[in-house]
């Protein structure tokens, strides 16, 4: 059952078309991410859901109720802002209890709720602190507690981790996930960091220029990007030009630049219109350097550059018949010495991991 459904959302700022016909259903209890480069409309869409921006046309339905004309303060959503927006003149407890003021709870009950919320985000005993003395991670937790205490149907998070350093960010990613499972409400996360989206989300909507380019679970998004642009945005992808050679019942044969003839299953092909000329996408791990044995299909290549990451090595390998080198990732095992720049080698691939894009 979907908690939010967006139908044909259009949003203009003057002449600028910020959202172009967004249709989307978000399920109850899921961790949903809006992912895209800056200016793609993801934050605008989040603010449309929160009620900070009106739509030019289209409907927003939250929990079965049409939100047209419902202001932000009456919506069953709460938000964690990019700057966290912690009220600097109020204490931590006053910040967290801010939204409960209208409920006019007895003092003891209010304090209990605030303590409960602080405990949930790991800030037990911080209630009396002045809010401007908090660290970045602590501010983030206060913002979370302040929003979650109201038990919203949906929690909206606007790039909540972008202000934190790398270590803190990784810690908060796990913690947000844990928190979401614990409270069981829908989280909608806006982020420009594809890795963050992959780690945290149940489903991801990738947005470019005001449109949803692909909406899928992380694995599918990574394995089967619908367009070349999505493939490029999520992780690393090599692109090779290809020509269709022959169509069979259970497979299609392509002549791929640098690799030669490759057999491809129908589910690897793009939906809808196809053409003779295509582009084939390969993740760095779908290619590998041959250390031992002689695989059925392998082509020669030359290492032009490499980056050593400790656990992995990323090679730039020039294949014959291609204009630019391909990126290949290899796990570093003791039986596989790291190749040197200029080394001649053999490259093989996993045909099932190829993705064909309409050219």
């Amino acid at each position, binding site marked *: 059952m979907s908690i939010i459904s967006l139908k044909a959302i259009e949003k203009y700022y003057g002449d600028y078309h910020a959202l172009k016909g967004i249709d989307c259903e978000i399920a109850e209890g899921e961790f949903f991410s809006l992912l895209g480069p800056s200016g793609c409309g993801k934050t605008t869409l989040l603010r449309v859901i929160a009620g900070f921006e009106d739509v030019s046309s289209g409907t927003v339905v939250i929990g079965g109720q049409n939100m047209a004309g419902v202001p932000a303060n009456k919506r069953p959503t709460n938000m964690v802002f990019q700057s966290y*927006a912690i009220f600097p003149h109020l204490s931590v407890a006053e910040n967290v209890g801010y939204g409960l003021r209208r409920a006019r709870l007895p003092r003891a009950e209010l304090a209990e709720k605030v303590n409960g919320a602080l405990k949930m985000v790991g800030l037990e005993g911080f209630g009396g602190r002045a809010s401007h003395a908090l660290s970045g991670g602590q501010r983030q937790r206060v913002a979370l507690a302040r929003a979650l205490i109201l038990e919203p149907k949906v929690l909206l998070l606007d790039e909540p981790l972008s202000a934190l350093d790398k270590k803190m960010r990784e810690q908060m990613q796990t913690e947000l996930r844990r928190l979401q499972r614990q409270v069981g409400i829908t989280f909608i996360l806006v982020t420009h960091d594809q890795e963050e989206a992959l780690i945290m989300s149940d489903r991801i909507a990738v947005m470019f220029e005001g449109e949803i380019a692909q909406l899928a679970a992380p694995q599918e998004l990574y394995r089967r990007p619908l367009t070349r642009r999505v493939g490029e945005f999520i992780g690393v992808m090599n692109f090779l030009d290809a020509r269709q050679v022959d169509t069979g019942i259970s497979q299609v044969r392509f002549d791929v630049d640098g690799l030669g003839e490759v057999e491809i299953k129908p589910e690897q092909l793009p939906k809808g219109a196809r053409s003779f000329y295509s582009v084939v996408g390969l993740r760095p791990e779908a290619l590998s350097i041959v250390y031992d044995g002689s695989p059925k299909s392998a082509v020669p290549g030359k290492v032009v550059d490499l980056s050593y990451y400790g656990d992995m090595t990323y090679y730039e390998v020039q294949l014959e018949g291609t204009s630019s080198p391909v990126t290949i990732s290899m796990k570093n095992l003791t039986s596989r010495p790291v190749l040197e720049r200029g080394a001649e080698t053999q490259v093989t691939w996993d045909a099932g991991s190829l993705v064909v894009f309409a050219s």
Partner: protein
Amino acid sequence: MKGGWLRIYAIGYLVFLYLPVVLLPMFAFNEGTVIAFPLKGFTTEWFVQLAGIEALHGALLNSVFIALVTASLSVIFGICAARASTRFRFPFKGPIMGAIMVPLVLPEIIVAVSLLVVVVQVLDLPLSAWTVIAGHTLICTPFAIAILSSAFQGLDQSLEEAAVDLGETRWGAFKNIILPLVSPGIVASFLICFTISLDEFIIAFFLTGAEPTLPVYIWSQLRFPTKIPAVMALGTLMLVASLIILSVAEYYRRRGVERVGGKDSGGFL
């Protein structure tokens, strides 16, 4: 020592700035009736004399009334304009805000003369404390806007949205979040406007009615050499009052900067 010559110059410049200010109390406590060196003995007679001048008390009350009303009006106008310009985008924003700030760079005599023409010649109204208030509000409002704009500007817009998100109405968010956060700026701008109005002479001289303001009263006394020691005493008291008011204003301004977590860049304007 860093900046050796510049430091000497700076100290010389401060002497130049403080020369008249230092002389003021010196003559106020000087026994001699002529304002010149060498000084005679120490006396508080001139301060005692001030207590007995009826006209002075009237002028003082009149000026304080004018300054209070001026400061209140300027701050209200200032809040409206500063909030509008920092929060909203609207057509003709540049020209409108520019026009509002014009009195800051207009020769004061022009403001005085144009209001005089309208009040006396066009509307045929009597000059009174209210005509002075009208003129003072005009020149004080830009100062209030300058101070309040920086207070509003320092605010993260998300704060207001967060309050609305947590259930407040627009007005509630303004009242409970924005106003408390800019209140130091409001106090500071009120005090600055109060002080400017209290000391303003050029406009007041044109627009004041039968009841003079304090500066207009002082102007009338400067012509009589025998009255001058008392005027010096009065000036000393006004200086002390101004310094107290400004210290309070500076205190509030700094507290405001701290409150929104900003860094102090120092000083008014």
